[in-house]
């Protein structure tokens, strides 16, 4: 019953032919389900998946953080943030891209979703980098990659789902994500420096400003910093949940924009409608991905892979390496949430049986999931950026990803080889 193999091949062909990704995945998924289960049951799953995905509380963070980003941008805060970043970092090669990597990390600390991080930072940082004549590849690459930190630096929707699936402590998982997340920022900054070393024109230096002007520019960051503090502080002090933080952050951005007199009724409607359109685009992809995931799940792809890992007779590190490679391959074509939901119940017991720490494995899963968000052909962060940057060919964005992908692979190998990188913090907390 290996229908998943032709299913994957046909999916790739249909997507390459220019059929919208959401529709391609939904169509092939539905056909595959019909081939296995028959028409009636397949259609029942398709309908239920569509309805359930729409009616999901946990996923409500996505539109609300997109809205927050849109409002921050319309409120003029992003312009000032980048003016400040430019003041401090702009004179370095690729300075704004460096600042973007840091800002992505900062935003990830208030957002549990990589897609929302990429969407928000795309709205905030891309116009600025374009204004400063940054290469589109570099600019979109650093945001797509930086955005992936959203699910690694706490809070994280994926870590919550992983924790519940594998019965690991979510607080420990969150703490475990901090150091790998900072490593991620440093890796992306290194990638920017390397690109700008070989292609200085990709990230032009700006003028060097005296310190007086630099500190003056910091005033422009107060609004955004306050908003971040509201969201971070609210979550960590327990005033609201990470899901609620999305609504509070959006409301905060709304009041700031209102206070600054940047919102007319027309602008507000534009911002809201734009957010709704982005929401539709993202969720249609999610619905398609979940229908397709149901198909490959029922077609037995996950268990086929797990059998392969188990029956190989290889030593534990080799099985780990194999599983990570499997994740990287799966991650090329699968949507991240469904990939985690599909594979973790299968691979986590294998890892536990081999004596590996499941908190550490959870972080590895998140890092490979991050990578999956930016690898072609299905790289959701790239698609999100594409919605912000409609005039840039998707190939250009994927080209810009490569240096960051290299940084990610280095980080993955480091974390796999030295579990202490992940585990010392949660162990220190006892």
């Amino acid at each position, binding site marked *: 019953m290996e229908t998943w193999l032709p299913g994957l091949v046909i999916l790739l062909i249909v997507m390459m032919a220019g059929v919208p990704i959401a529709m391609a995945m939904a169509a092939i998924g539905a056909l595959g389900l019909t081939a296995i289960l028959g028409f009636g049951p397949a259609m029942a799953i398709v309908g239920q998946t569509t309805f359930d995905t729409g009616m999901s509380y946990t996923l409500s963070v996505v539109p609300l953080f997109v809205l927050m980003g849109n409002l921050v941008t319309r409120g003029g805060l992003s312009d000032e943030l980048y003016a400040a970043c430019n003041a401090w970092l702009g004179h370095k090669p690729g300075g704004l891209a460096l600042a973007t990597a840091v800002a992505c990390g900062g935003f990830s600390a208030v957002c549990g979703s990589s897609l929302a991080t990429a969407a928000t930072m795309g709205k905030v940082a891309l116009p600025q980098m374009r204004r400063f004549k940054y290469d589109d590849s570099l600019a979109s690459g650093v945001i797509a990659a930086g955005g992936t930190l959203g699910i690694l630096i706490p809070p994280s929707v994926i870590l*919550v789902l992983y*924790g519940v699936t594998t019965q690991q*402590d979510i607080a420990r998982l969150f703490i475990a994500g901090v150091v790998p997340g900072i490593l991620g920022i440093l890796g992306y900054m290194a990638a920017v420096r390397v690109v700008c070393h070989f292609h200085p024109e990709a990230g032009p230096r700006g003028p060097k400003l005296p310190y007086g002007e630099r500190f003056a520019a910091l005033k422009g960051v107060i609004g955004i910093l306050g908003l971040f503090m509201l969201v971070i502080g609210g979550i960590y002090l327990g*005033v609201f949940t990470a899901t609620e933080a999305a609504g509070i952050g959006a409301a905060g951005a709304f009041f700031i924009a209102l206070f600054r007199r940047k919102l007319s009724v027309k602008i507000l409607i534009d911002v809201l409608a734009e957010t709704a359109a982005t929401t539709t685009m993202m969720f249609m992809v999610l619905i398609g991905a979940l229908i397709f*995931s149901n198909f490959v799940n029922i077609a037995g792809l996950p268990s086929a892979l797990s059998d392969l890992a188990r029956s190989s007779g290889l030593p534990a590190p080799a099985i780990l390496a194999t599983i990570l490679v499997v994740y990287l391959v799966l991650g090329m074509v699968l949507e991240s949430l469904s990939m985690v939901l599909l594979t973790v119940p299968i691979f986590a017991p294998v890892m536990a049986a081999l004596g590996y720490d499941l908190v550490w494995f959870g972080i590895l899963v998140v890092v490979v999931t991050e990578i999956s968000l930016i690898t072609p052909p299905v790289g959701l962060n790239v698609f999100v950026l594409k919605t912000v940057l409609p005039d840039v060919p998707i190939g250009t964005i994927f080209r810009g990803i490569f240096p960051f992908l290299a940084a990610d692979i280095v980080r993955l190998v480091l974390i796999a080889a030295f579990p202490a990188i992940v585990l010392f913090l949660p162990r220190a907390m006892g």
Partner: protein
Amino acid sequence: ETTLRVSNWLPPSHPIVRDILEPWGKQVEEATGGNVKVEIMSSPIGKPPAQFDLIKSGAADVGYGVHGYTPGRFKLTPIVEGPFLSDSAEALSVAYWKVHEQMLSKADEHQGVKVLTVFTHGPGAIFTTSKPVKTVADANGLKMRIGGGVVAQIAERLGMVGVQAPSPQVYEILSNGVADGILFPAESVPFFRIDEVLKYGTTVPGGLYNTSFFVVMNEGTWNGLSDKDKAAIDKVSGEAMARLAGQAWDAADAAGTKIMAEKGLEITQADDAMTAELAEKLEGINQGFLDAAKAAGIDGEAALEMLQGEIAAQSK
């Protein structure tokens, strides 16, 4: 040879999967002489509230779920969701199955599927993070994470403020103080890792509330089985499976209670004064069931009486 695919929305380590569905699957395989195999799916094919419909439509052969997730649909299952029923999930589950089979099934609320069994979890209790609940007044105004159905009515009558959150967020809302506590059976506390954030537990004799579960099979799948296989499956389902499920919950509750004790949770049982006060506040909580039974042409009083009698018989 047939393979029954079981739709599963819980992790493999959950008692429902590990201690109910898996052993049942083995029993089915043995009872049918290997004719019928049972395969538990590793990923969910739909959200928990959709399970009944998914099984009915044949998306999987067998599935389980909570009646209270679709409250408008199952109006008789609240019979086992009220307070003071039993300290033993086994006694309550077996009694529930018998009442279901003899009386409640006449209403045909599970139309379009073969009901393999119905069961309940262990006695529901009150768990809090910062102050113990020793009287009914202590419960007043507490922000509690609760499920829907009868338990929501119970919480409301006790003056609790309901906080809604999906189960993956239970840890978060308790650890950061969005909720003051939770209504859960003992098993669920360590399962959701909230033994680390909870400090106090108050159990109620017979339980403060309970939850009704179903296990059902697609009708087409059932009709496609040979009479011999049907008989074999019936033998290990129904009462036998309700007993299996109840025993699994009792064992899981005992394990949960032990872990909580090790973690230093202060767990007390409601004293006579509090129990009496609870009984007074929760007077007539069965009215919803009685009305629904009447509408379905079932003698609700008799059903409640039979349930009590069977619980007593099982508890001996």
